[in-house]
């Protein structure tokens, strides 16, 4: 069994660091789509706020009342913003699905692809991953059912118990179980994508079967790898949120923007770190197997350092 000690973890981080271009590309798309998604609301609300003295309650603090008054403003500045925001979020999800092929190829081969090669890899795997997404949706159904059952159980416990805490603990336990299940599912499907890229598997059902086999035999090490990065992500997110909400002055709008965007970049980096570590883990697990020939011959200039060459 391949080790998942600090070496794999740090090597995964190093891969993300070396392929920063991917991180910044994904962040740029994320930012761009969010800007598009909120542009209408910003324009409409700006027309109300920019010349009004009533904005003091929003600038020097954040008055929920002043914010909610905008919801009832006659010009309805938020109307049509929510669907737009949802649309851009869906677009980003589709973009990530598209980019995953290129990202995994870069990470697995640990070499810098040209833009053309990167997007070629994206295109090569897009339909496979799209099909896989359907399977993921199917796999989420039992989790949804479980969540509904847990909610019903919590309601029942809540109704019967004199103290509120048995129901609270039921919800806590159920939430942890469901979160772990979701992470397992994600890990399963992530590894199937890695297999598809590493072995050129075109049948995603077969990739999912292989991934399931892999998980069955290496669940502890893989999940531990995934969990550690997730925990780091949550801790970083919580710290960023605390800094934004509690330590920045309400008027420090520029700094708040930097902190919030740093959190977004960090969150993206965490996700890419998981993907890089998965790819690395898979590469390290099969030393006896030859790593498939690169999809695109590497250019001499972009040759990865020798110690990082696949074994």
């Amino acid at each position, binding site marked *: 069994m391949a080790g998942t000690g600090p070496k794999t973890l740090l090597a995964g981080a190093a891969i993300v660091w070396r392929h920063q271009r991917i991180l910044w590309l994904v962040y740029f798309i994320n*930012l761009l789509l969010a800007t598009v*998604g909120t542009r209408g609301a910003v324009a409409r609300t700006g027309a109300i706020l920019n*010349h009004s*003295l009533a904005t003091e309650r929003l*600038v020097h603090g954040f008055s929920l009342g002043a914010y909610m008054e905008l919801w009832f403003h006659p010009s309805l500045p938020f109307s049509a913003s929510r669907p737009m925001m949802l649309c851009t979020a869906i677009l980003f*999800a589709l973009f*990530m699905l598209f980019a995953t092929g290129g990202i995994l190829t870069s990470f697995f081969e640990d070499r810098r692809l040209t833009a053309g090669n990167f997007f070629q890899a994206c295109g090569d795997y897009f339909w496979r991953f799209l099909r896989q997404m359907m399977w993921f949706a199917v796999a989420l159904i039992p989790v949804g059912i479980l969540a509904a059952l847990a909610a019903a159980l919590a309601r029942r416990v809540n109704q019967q118990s004199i103290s509120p805490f048995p129901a609270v603990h039921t919800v806590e336990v159920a939430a942890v179980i469901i979160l772990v299940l979701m992470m397992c599912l994600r890990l399963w499907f992530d590894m199937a994508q890695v297999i598809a890229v590493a072995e050129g598997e075109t049948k995603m059902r077969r990739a999912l079967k292989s991934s399931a086999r892999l998980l069955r035999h290496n669940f502890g090490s893989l999940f531990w790898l995934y969990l550690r990065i997730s925990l780091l992500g949550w801790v970083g997110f919580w710290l960023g949120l605390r800094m934004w909400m*509690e330590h920045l002055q309400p008027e420090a709008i520029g700094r708040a923007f930097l902190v919030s965007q740093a959190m977004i970049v960090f969150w993206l980096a965490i996700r890419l770190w998981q993907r890089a570590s998965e790819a690395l883990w898979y590469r390290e697990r099969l030393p006896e197997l030859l790593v498939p020939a690169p999809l695109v011959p590497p250019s001499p200039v972009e040759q990865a350092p020798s110690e990082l060459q696949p074994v």
Partner: protein
Amino acid sequence: MCRTRPAALIVIAAISLSARPEIALPPPQARPKLAATQDALSIRVVSYKIEPRLDPANHTITATETLTYHNLTGQPQQTFPFHLYLNAFQPKSTWVAEDERDHAGHEWKPEQYGSITVDRLTVTGMGDLTSKMQFVHPDDDNAEDRTVMQVTLPKPVPPGADVQFTMTFTDKLPEVVARTGYLRDFFMVGQWFPKVGVWWKGAWNCHQFHASTEFFADFGTFDVQITLPQNEIVGAAGDLISSVNNPDGTKTLLFHSEDVHDFSWAASPNFRVIEDSWTGSAGPVRIHLLMSPGNMPSAPRYLEAQKGALKLFDEWIGPYPYGRITIVDPPHGGFNAGGMEYPTLFTADTTWYMPKSVLLPENVVVHEFGHQYWYGMVATNEFEEAWLDEGINTYMEAKIMDVLYGKNTSVIRSRFVTLGELEDQRAGIMVPGYLRWPDTDPITRPGWRFYDDSAYGAVTYSKTSLLLRTLEKVIGEETLRSALHTYFLRYRFTHPTGEDFLKTIEEVSGKDLRWYFNQAVYGTNILDYEILDAQSEPLNPDDAKNAGSHSRPDVYRTTVVVHRKGDFIFPVDVEIKFDDGKSLIEHWDGRDRWMRYQYDRAAQLVSAEIDPEHKVQLDLNLYNNSYRVQQDQRAIRKLSNIWMFVGEWLAQLLAWLT
């Protein structure tokens, strides 16, 4: 133990009241001679003696009630109506129909149905009249509604005489719904006994129970002897006179209460009782707090808010004359029992996880305690004029919360987000907001005739509070407080009307305020002012041509146009600021649709603002009340930042799920 109200209490109260520099307080109406004791605070029309027996397993109460009614109506009375409130929770009742109309999709569970059945009714000297009982429907044609029962006696009761009704009845308590019922082993027993209507304005006033209405009853005395299992801990709206353990494992508790118009009680074996006290101008007040499991962290918060409310009501409005107040904290899941007022007892509301930055427990305590004044003592008709208790009380609640917890932080006070009571009443985050329902109904509309339950809440609670805040602009905050004080002293332990309240304000302020009341109280007019135009231009056209040069024009013509968008006419101040640091205040009566102000000065306009003191809280749109020449994009940048962050994070979450 029994607490007999000492006559000294009345004297202390009178002294404390006489210290206030106000208007003489002649009695508003000729009061008949008191029927009961000389030190009574109210005209005691009714005297109830009730002996309920609680069956916790079956959620039922069997009881015998003896009601002595003193006919102070000034005329013979032969027909008597009674409220049977628990019958509201029946499948075909008016209450349920209205609830289903306003809350589409809400399904009633079988256990949420409740009822009250009068098994026998006798009248002293007139025999068994059970067969004479009939259900009536004074408000609608719903023959299935059984919330009002009427009985016609064989002979009339002469004026000044007493009549004694004896009823045996059975309550089937619902799983807690609309302020009453059971939840597991918790019982909130309110509106649970046959209650006679009120002879008011020359007729019986006994409305059916509606989803948006509350109660109305005469003052009197209550002697309630409750029998229930010995492990039950009881909180009741009366002084405990005696407690006797019975051989069958039950106990019988006798409570006495006077100068109140209702009696409610709560029981649970799991209450933790906390006792505290506070001393005001009318003497000590014992605070009984009954906490449910899991909610203990909220107990100090309840007590702090309770003492703060006692103090400020005592200072601003008048003395609290009862020697006790009982606060019942419903158990988890008992939201439907929370936040309800009864004389000398109310239910609070919290959760096990209530963050310190969310002041819901404090808010509910201040509001429900306020009802001891506006409903408990000033006993207005909640069916027909709910704004007189809910609205005035919401205004007082905001005033008190602002003093106790800060003006803009009296609902939420975290470092990042804040919310004040007044803002909440406008925007409707914790309470139904005025901005959503500004003009559906006048506040004076009877409760069941509002557009829907939400409009009822927004108009009755929030709009009334905001119109009183806006009235402060006209007569001053202190004058309005003085008017409320006078209104309380004059009408406590009576049933005043809306006009009594409005006339008191006019009398105390010395102003004719009909123009305001006709729009704000009786009307549905929209109040919305805006700065339509505000600019400075060089007065000399040559200066305009040279505007790009370094020389500054000598004189600018500044124009500010104020526009009344709504149909509510209200005088406003307009503050105009110039870049030489000077500012002007203009006063506009608002009668015309617009007003143009022009100034030729050696300074340019910086900003123009309507109502710079922010007193006109009925204004529908506060953002258009001002205009600044130089844009300030900080607010929109801040909002944009938050929205972008949410959008980006949502997108990433979605990507994780694909």
